[in-house]
């Protein structure tokens, strides 16, 4: 009697489990095929049926990729810009967050509102004049055009402020000041070490954003030898005869570091990226 009533109610969750699991697999499939196609030549990819498992043309694809574009150079620029952007963002955002969390000063409230307000400004509004400023500064084709402008991000300052407010007691700062520690010393020797967990998260997010950035380099990086990875990959795209195997090999290499970072810190990344929403 009871089995007759419980059967449909058990079936429903089972079907739901299956759908969620199937959905998760579908979400991951494009990544799988990116790596599979990276190991096949263009003619193999466009075959019936298309390849479903790894082939042995990866090295040949890399050969095509590195002769058509300065791939390793682009990888180097992506790495350089990513690291510089991370370092600068951590410095400026921890400074800003510390100021908002631990000091009372004139204009604090309007300044904080301003910082938050910059998050609402759509980036496309500044696209054209930014290009002109970079041109005027002589920053076209300069990596600094990519890592300086966004270094004091509102997101980062807000995140640091929240963390400092919750994790560092004001008394600690006051005590250090009483003991004669200079202001720079307080920031560098007390605040920064305590900020490490939050800095780790912000650093990861900043690096990933810089690594994936497309519009920024699209506007300021004009010569192919200065292209970052996304630009370099896109330059392989042509209306006819795109070397898809080579493009997939390059995309796979560009995606691999992100997969590794995600595998070791997914919890932290997900929490950090949605922190603004949850508060």
């Amino acid at each position, binding site marked *: 009697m009871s089995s007759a009533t419980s059967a449909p109610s058990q079936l429903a969750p089972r079907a739901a489990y299956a759908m969620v699991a199937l959905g998760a697999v579908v979400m991951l499939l494009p*990544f799988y095929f990116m790596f599979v196609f990276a190991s096949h030549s263009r003619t193999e990819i466009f075959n019936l049926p298309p390849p479903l498992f790894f082939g042995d043309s990866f090295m040949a694809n890399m050969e095509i990729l590195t002769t058509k574009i300065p791939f390793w150079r682009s990888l180097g620029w992506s790495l350089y810009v990513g690291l510089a952007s991370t370092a600068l963002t951590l410095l400026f955002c921890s400074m800003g967050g510390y*100021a908002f969390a631990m000091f009372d000063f004139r204009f604090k409230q309007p300044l904080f509102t301003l910082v938050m307000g910059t998050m609402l400004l759509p980036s*496309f509004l500044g696209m054209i004049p930014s290009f002109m400023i970079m041109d005027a500064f002589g920053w076209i084709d300069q990596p600094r055009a990519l890592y300086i402008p966004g270094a004091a991000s509102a997101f980062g300052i807000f995140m640091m402020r929240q963390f400092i407010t919750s994790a560092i007691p004001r008394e600690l700062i006051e005590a250090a000041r009483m003991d004669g520690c200079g202001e720079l010393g307080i*920031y560098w020797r007390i605040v920064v070490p305590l900020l490490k967990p939050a800095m780790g998260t912000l650093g990861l997010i900043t690096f*990933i954003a810089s*690594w994936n950035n497309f519009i920024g380099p699209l506007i300021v990086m004009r010569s192919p030898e200065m292209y970052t*990875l996304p630009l370099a990959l896109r330059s392989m795209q042509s209306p006819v005869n795109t070397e898809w195997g080579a493009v997939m090999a390059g995309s796979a290499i*560009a995606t691999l570091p992100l997969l590794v970072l995600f595998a070791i810190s997914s919890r932290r990344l997900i929490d950090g990226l949605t922190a603004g*929403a949850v508060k």
Partner: protein
Amino acid sequence: MTPRLSPAAVPYVLLSPFVVLFLVFGVFPLCFSFYLAFQSWEPTAGLSAMKFVGLDNFAFAITDEWFWKSLKNTVWLAMVSGIPQHLVAIPLAYFIHTSFKRSRNMVIGAYFLPYITSTVAIAMMFSTLFSTDYGLINQALLAMHQLPGLAWITPAQPVDWLGQAENVKPAISLVVFWRYVGFNTVLYLAALQTIPADIYEAATMDGAGRWQQFWFITLPSLQPMIYFGVTLSVVGGLQLFEEPFILTGGRGGTDQSGMTTAMYMYRTAFEFNDFGGASALSWLLFVFVALLTWLTNRAFKPRGPSA
């Protein structure tokens, strides 16, 4: 002996990088963009060639067929890629929240992963998957067509996803949906965790079933997050640039059917060399985004008990 910084000056020193960068790369471009919108200027001619033209750029934009087309595309894409994200994310988050224990983080990770990967790599990948004769998406659809019961919803012929005008937007929407659905799921999961468990317990004691609990407790409690998530999707969707740019090879696709307004603005500036016109376009888009955000606000903002 080094001079010591007085504590009163410290916050200003700490905030100086933000202020300087904000003025140089935030305020100035914004003002200049406004100024440019009333000028006629080709960058190759040098700064002295700039000429005040009043509202000409705006007049041109609102009589420009491509502008309206791009705006229509943008709204279409924002809706078709945005609405399903929330329709899927809310029940998905609810189900993960209530029914997953051990494999929870793995499942969330799988759905979230597309959000952190490079749009360019992803869009390149989808370009091959969308290939008409050999792409896996068409192969899967054709295989499904052979199955009984699925024939009526699946095409009998390969679909020309990126070549035929009416298919370009659905293809772009699919990629955008795939990329952001996990992000929204995580937002809703976070909101679900803040609903106290004893409300559900009380409801169970009063004999409310799972559906009733979802409908009368969960959904109303999620309303602030729905408001936030939908606003993010509207604002983000209306600025869509990278996915359509890569999937249409930067040219907007057949009949410009995949060209968003942000893309049209970029092309006006860097392809057609009309910086004044592009600035006017960017302000029109800005006003449009602000207007739609306000409308979303009216539709979804949680109201107080008195209202």
